[in-house]
């Protein structure tokens, strides 16, 4: 048995929103107690109230969540300033929630320790780790390294980085009743769970190739003999570099991955910070994306997840879409959910959010990676 309830409201009043969400869940669950769940909330809600109320209603539920840049679900499709909840009931899948706090103090160590302890507490071999980590206070790649270390390389990790509606001030992570910042919450799934996923981007390189001359971790100082900020300004004008304009970082002549500016710059040093490390000596190129290409990629991501699902009947879908996609898509953002929904073979209860970075392996069996500008579809079930 694997049942999923999805609730979604766009009432901005926290008290009312929580009541509505709980009512929708109760109606779908019909007295059953959920064992695991995910809460995705816009930044303006009273998050402690949200978590407290859900916890009171379902005290046994292993719950994680985060703030977002936009929410989507099979109930209300794409929304902003909304609250969506996905709850799981199953007799064959076990759920266990955990969190690493003050993760910026030691991103790798804290993440590894937290997830390792959670696995020990659960006493089962996890099959999937869903994580919704902090995006602004620390390097997310190092958090992911820690999770991989704590879980072992066999367990796939998927998820998205918490966001704050493009404000880049503070994001919040949830675990049980806790609402914190600078943390890495995760939900472990064990038992008879079947999983598949798809990753697709849509960005392509434009302009001239350039070489990274000086960088330290995720801060780039010089590109092609130019200060990194000036390199960006020659393309974008006086505006601040933002994550819709990632660099294509080339590995070989054809293959590249994307690194998006985090929005943080240093006017004195004229440096640009990225969501993820940019290696010194790497060949990079400016990128752009058209709305059509972004939407095609979203669809391709869901098609890949559906095509590789190892069972016959998927039970639920989750999405992690980069906030930069929303910035380029503008009013057509709602089409992204629409395209993904129509590319499912059967309608599935689903929810997801616009993130500050995505996590998933590039393909099944490969190690999980940190991505920018992608749409990640995850399909789970037991049959």
């Amino acid at each position: 048995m694997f049942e999923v309830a999805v609730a979604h409201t766009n009432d901005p009043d926290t008290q009312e929103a929580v009541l509505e969400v709980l009512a929708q869940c109760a109606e779908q669950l019909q007295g059953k107690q959920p064992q695991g769940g995910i809460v995705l909330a816009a930044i303006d809600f009273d998050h402690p109230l949200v978590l407290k109320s859900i916890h009171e209603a379902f005290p046994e539920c292993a719950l994680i969540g985060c703030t977002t840049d936009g929410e989507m679900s099979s109930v209300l499709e794409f929304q902003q300033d909304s609250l969506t909840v996905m709850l799981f009931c199953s007799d064959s899948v076990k759920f266990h929630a955990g969190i690493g706090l003050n993760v910026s103090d030691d991103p790798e160590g804290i993440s590894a320790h937290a997830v390792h302890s959670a696995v020990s507490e659960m006493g089962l071999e996890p099959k999937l780790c869903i994580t919704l980590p902090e995006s602004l206070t620390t390097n997310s790649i190092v958090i992911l390294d820690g999770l991989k270390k704590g879980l072992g390389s066999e367990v796939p990790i998927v998820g998205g980085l918490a966001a704050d509606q493009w404000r880049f001030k503070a994001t919040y992570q949830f675990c049980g009743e806790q609402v914190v910042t600078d943390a890495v919450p995760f939900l472990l799934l064990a038992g008879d769970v079947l999983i598949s996923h798809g990753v697709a981007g849509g960005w392509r390189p434009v302009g001239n190739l350039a070489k990274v001359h000086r960088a330290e971790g995720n801060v780039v100082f010089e590109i092609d003999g130019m200060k990194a900020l000036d390199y960006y300004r020659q393309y974008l004008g006086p505006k601040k570099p933002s994550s819709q304009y990632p660099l294509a970082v080339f590995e070989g002549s054809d293959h590249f991955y994307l690194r998006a500016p985090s929005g943080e710059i240093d006017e004195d040093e004229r440096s640009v910070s990225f969501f993820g490390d940019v290696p010194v000596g790497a060949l990079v190129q400016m990128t752009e994306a058209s709305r059509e290409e972004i939407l095609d990629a979203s669809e391709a991501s869901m098609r890949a997840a559906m095509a590789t699902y190892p069972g016959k009947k998927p039970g639920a879908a989750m999405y992690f879409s980069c906030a930069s996609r929303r910035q380029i898509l503008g009013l057509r953002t709602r089409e992204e959910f629409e395209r993904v929904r129509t590319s499912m073979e059967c309608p599935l209860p689903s929810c997801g959010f616009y993130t500050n970075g995505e996590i998933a392996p590039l393909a099944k069996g490969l190690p999980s990676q940190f991505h920018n500008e992608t749409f990640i579809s995850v399909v789970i079930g037991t049959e």
Partner: protein
Amino acid sequence: MMSDSTEYVEQIRRLEREVRILQKKLQRSEADREQLEDTKDKNDSLQRNVIGELRESQAQIALKSRELEKTVEELKAAQDELIESAKMASLGQLVAGVAHEVNTPLGVGVTAASHLDNLAKEFSDYLEGPEVTRESANRFIEGTRQSSEIILKNLRRASELIASFKLVAVDQSIHSTREYNIYEYLGEIMLSLSNRLKRARVEVLIEGDPTLTVSGDPGVLSQIITNLVMNAVIHAYDDGDSGLLKIRFEDSGENICIEFEDDGKGIDSGHLSKIFDPFFTTRRGSGGSGLGLNIVYNLIRGQVGGKIECFSTLGKGTRFVMSMPKVQVEPIMKRAEMS
């Protein structure tokens, strides 16, 4: 009354909710508009600057391509010069062959002539002596006849050799179209190369219809076959090895098919695709220009309008299969030069 008021309360509650949602949406819409405008400005700027870069790259490409065109022209001129000097070198070899071949009959002729001179001196002295017999007169006549025959035979041989060298040499240097017998002409070419073939201990077997004629420039065929023979003599056999070259030709309707086969070392499969490339040689250090087979290729493809393919098995030998029209039209370039 009671139910009315509950309904109103419910309606108000719903309306309040709608208002809250709409207010929030409005607020969000303002914020989104600002963000989207910002994105649009950045997009516009990106497009402008990428287009600028493209224009710059195009200008650079145009400049580079002009430079490349110039370099190609210079290289072409250098290649033409090299091909010309390679042709002159093959004429030089021909002249050396002529000298060697003609030297033998001329040497025999000179010996016979000096013998004749001695005979004449002896007979003159004899005439002044006391006794002149018929027998000695007959001996003198016999001696002079023999010497004259030797002289005549060798001068004819020299004359024949010079005639065939002249034919091949003139054909190689002055191009003109005529009808010629291919079997006989291949024989003439081999005669002109006989010195080199003898030194290399390589024999040549020519097979084909001895009456078949071709209309074209015999000089081109001479250059093709000479270069193939020289290529085989230099590359197919190690010093001291003997070999057999087979040249077979046959009529195949509008075309004539010529096979040139050696029984030498064969060509490495890695080299096979490059042998017709200009300047490709495995003997750069020992004076190979790498132009021999390129000239063959260009003559067949360009001048003759034919095809050439090469097949080779290591340790067994190499076979060139050529096909060329029986009636070859003069290349346009040459006609223009002549007019």
